[in-house]
């Protein structure tokens, strides 16, 4: 499979997910790159983050990604000779906060496929960056996805999840959840 010189992050994500699926591995697009998939005009990323669902043998991943022109550069990281996007494979399992992610969305483009966090999970994931570290940029991305994919984001599920996280770790600030909903309502 050949990636064109002007391939976008989404093109790379579809291609990588497809070659890994053909090699028998399920890789799910997550992190900031999943946000960039849903709001490409608002959020750019040069890292394409995948978590391989079940721990894959490195040589299988190496061989699959080599077919796209990607080569291993460091533990869990692959680079292309000309494209600016780095493929990153954080160690799994797929989880947001304390909860494992066991379901995701699969989109298709012709023969290509992409496993990706649902919009609700992207909002949870980006919001958690803000919640844990106070990262305002991540809050903006969470809000952007929630606004752009309003029909797909389950805000009640999101709220219930924040309550479960708070039960487990009382040091999280409730005020940040309130702020998220306030900004979503007024923004």
């Amino acid at each position, binding site marked *: 499979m050949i990636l064109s010189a002007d391939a976008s992050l989404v093109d790379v994500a579809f291609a990588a997910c497809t070659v890994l699926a053909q090699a028998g591995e399920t890789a799910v697009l997550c992190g900031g790159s999943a946000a960039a998939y849903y709001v490409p005009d608002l959020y750019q990323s040069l890292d394409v983050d995948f978590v391989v669902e079940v721990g894959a043998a490195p040589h299988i991943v190496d061989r699959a990604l080599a077919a796209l022109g990607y080569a291993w550069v460091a533990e869990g990281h692959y680079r292309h000779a000309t494209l600016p996007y780095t493929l990153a494979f954080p*160690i799994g399992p797929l989880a947001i*906060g304390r909860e494992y992610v066991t379901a995701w969305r699969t989109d298709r483009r012709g023969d290509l496929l992409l496993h990706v966090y649902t919009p609700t999970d992207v909002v949870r994931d980006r919001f958690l960056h803000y919640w844990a570290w106070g990262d305002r940029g991540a809050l903006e991305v969470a809000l952007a996805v929630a606004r752009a994919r309003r029909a797909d984001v389950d805000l009640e599920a999101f709220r219930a999840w924040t309550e479960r996280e708070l039960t487990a770790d009382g040091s999280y600030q409730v005020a940040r959840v309130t702020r998220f909903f306030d900004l979503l309502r007024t923004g």
Partner: protein
Amino acid sequence: MRRDDLRPAVFGTATRDRVLIRLALSENGLHVRELARQIESSANAVHRVVIALERAGIVVSRPVGTTRIVLLNRRWYGAVELRALLDRLAGAYPEVVERAKRSRERPRRIGKPL
């Protein structure tokens, strides 16, 4: 670190145990050199441990000036349980706890008597 240390390496090595226990005692994280000094290990050994733990998602680091501050990743899916275990294990490492107590992380007004 004492070579005759007979405490079990719960996380694989004594350095790894001490790094995690010391980080659990820190509110704002520590840079690698300070972390190494506090657990009486070499900066290189601690650096290697930190890289492995960061890769596993158990710790995170953030740049501060020309250095990086390392702290436990509260976003990690096992963070609450890990912290509880480290709090328990800290009891077996009184020297690490004692050094942590003496290490002040909060700002201190210039000129204030010690």
